[in-house]
């Protein structure tokens, strides 16, 4: 409109446009704080920065000296004060001591695995079968089978899914000097510990 040019050439701005730009800047700044409010949506309870105990169903902490070879237990991670959340399938993990042929005799973290029990196919709960000739994870719903050493599906519908949805999420474990097992803080990412119910890339 009533342009009051600032300088020669095309680089001019009328005062009304300048006012408009100021108003736009003010509006953007006013609503900037709300961008961060998006953090309200995701659930923060799954992320922790501390390592936590491998708590067995009987309440004790798993120990390399007492936990049997070729044996598994269902554990809860992350454990909560809320009994309802502790029954949550997405918080149940299959804690396995590998059979001796896969190195389960060693008293170190490499003899243990903790995989999400949520089958990557349709989210039933699979479990580890230690019997001779099986020694694998099996899902009761559609028969997906998982390799206990890697967590990769080798049979059934889950095996037909493209990566990362054919490998189970896995927790990183650590053994302290007394032989007790700990879960390291996870990185819920397909390139890290994986996403429960979705999968993980094998490095």
């Amino acid at each position: 409109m009533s342009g009051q040019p600032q300088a020669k050439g095309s680089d001019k701005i009328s005062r009304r446009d300048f006012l408009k730009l100021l108003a736009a800047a003010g509006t953007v700044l006013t609503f900037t704080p709300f961008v961060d409010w998006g953090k309200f949506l995701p659930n923060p309870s799954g992320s922790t920065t501390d390592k936590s105990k491998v708590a067995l169903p009987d309440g004790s902490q798993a120990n390399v000296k007492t936990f049997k070879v070729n044996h598994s237990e269902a554990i809860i991670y992350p454990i909560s004060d809320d009994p309802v959340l502790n029954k949550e399938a997405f918080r149940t993990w299959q804690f396995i001591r590998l059979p001796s042929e896969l190195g389960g005799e060693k008293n170190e973290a490499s003899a243990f695995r903790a995989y999400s029990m949520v089958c990557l196919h349709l989210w039933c709960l699979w479990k580890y079968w230690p019997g001779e000739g099986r020694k694998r994870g099996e899902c009761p719903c559609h028969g997906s089978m998982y390799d206990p050493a890697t967590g990769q599906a080798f049979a059934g519908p889950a095996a037909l899914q493209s990566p990362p949805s054919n490998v189970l999420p896995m927790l990183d474990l650590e053994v302290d000097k007394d032989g007790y097992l700990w879960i390291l803080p996870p990185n819920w990412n397909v390139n890290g510990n994986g996403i429960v119910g979705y999968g993980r890339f094998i490095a």
Partner: protein
Amino acid sequence: MAASLHRENSLVRLFRWIYAGVDRTIFMGLKFTFPTRFVSPLGFLGMLTFVLFIILGISGALLMLWYEPILDRAWDSVENINDTIPYGFHLRNIHYHASNAMVMMAILHMYYQYFSGRYKIRNEILWVTGILIGVLTILEAFTGYDIIFSERAELAISIAASLTNSIPILGPDMRDAFFGSGFHDFVLRFYAFHVFLLPIALIGLMTVHFPRFLVFDVPMVMAITGAIMITGGVFPVDMGLKFDPNVPPGITVPEWYLTGLYAFLRSQYDKFVTGVAWPGLFIFTLLIIPFIDKYKKFSWKDRPLVTAIGITSIAQIVVTTYWGFYIDPDRTKSLLDRLVIDPIFLYTVMIALVPLSFGFTYLMIKLAKNAEANAKRQPRKKESVITLPEKWVYFVFIALIGFQIYLNIAAYYALLNGMKNISLFIIGIIMLVFAGMFHIYRHGRSMANNPPPPAIPQTDRIKAIQRSKRSLAESINDKPELTTTSSANPSVGHIKNNGILNKVFKGGRKNKDPYKKMWSRD
């Protein structure tokens, strides 16, 4: 650069296309007004109430993501929202304080319409639906603070259930229908009422209640939003104590919009009369007032009886609201002695307020009419206008933007340090600053349209006259060129655009712009 703000780009075309499509919708029947200067908010309190309803809808919908309407989890889930979930504290406080603000705004809106006689002239339907919306709003707020299921909520529910039960004939069945049996049902049903049934009923009534002429005042809306956040920052709402049936509850009072009713209940008089009949009578009186108000005029000064009834109701509401809050602080007395209000005393005061309010109204009308008559006799005063020179519009605006940047950093920093209430407070200030900014923007735009008379120093006067004569002569020669160049290519009309031309041909800027310097430094 300037041209880019005017050019017809694809985004602008999309907006135009959408706007044209809105032609087929109900919204074209509404006439929205965006005030171009400050106007009293009294006239659009209803719109502000609706804005609060929207704020409550958004914050409430977000709270629904975390709230669990289950007997033994309700309070804990609210605690989780308040303490653990990022920005849960903010949203809960906004939701709580906006609910109080909405009730308050609805009451103010009603009384403004009442005293200005706006419920007349075929606005009766608007009034009646408005009263119903008001009642539902209070029920909505009531169910809201009950589903936290703290001690106070449990007491409120038990009182509400016993009042419903006291209704003759239908009472027990209504109690079964609305409350179910036991605490588990209370929580779940109140939740269903709070998040679905009552809001749906409110929206339905609002579609009838909305008049066709609406005012949306951006600075006022932002100021109210900011005020809610600031209140939340200064007075964060507490959690109360989790209700435990094995622990005797302490003394609690309901929210302020129900303490008036609570005062009557505390008189220990019959439950149905105090808790159902009195508020029912109040609501009924409000519903029928447009039909019994037979005055031909609108002003409160010309409707003494109606005004007196209104003043009486305000007096009684104020007194009982305070009375409901007041609990004898003497802890040596028994709980019952501290809580019970002597019914004879209470009702005597209520009756005494009637002649007092009528007398007060009579006095006010006399005074107002006197003042009116005096004002007519004296010459009319000039309207006082705040004038901010145009240069200062930009300076203040830029200063405010700088302040916004500082506040943004401060709010985020406060949050990082776990000071949630301070972060909420600062975000409230950001809203207020935006309100001020918008006001200045509006001022600047109106100045661009009607600039103040040029401040020409006396010594330069002759020169100025000569110059204006010269430019007038120029302008007449250049008339056709100017009209085409104004927005498409401002550089062409550069020099000529500057002077008296605009005044002559476009009603725009006058000669000798005092702020010209700021723009042309060459």
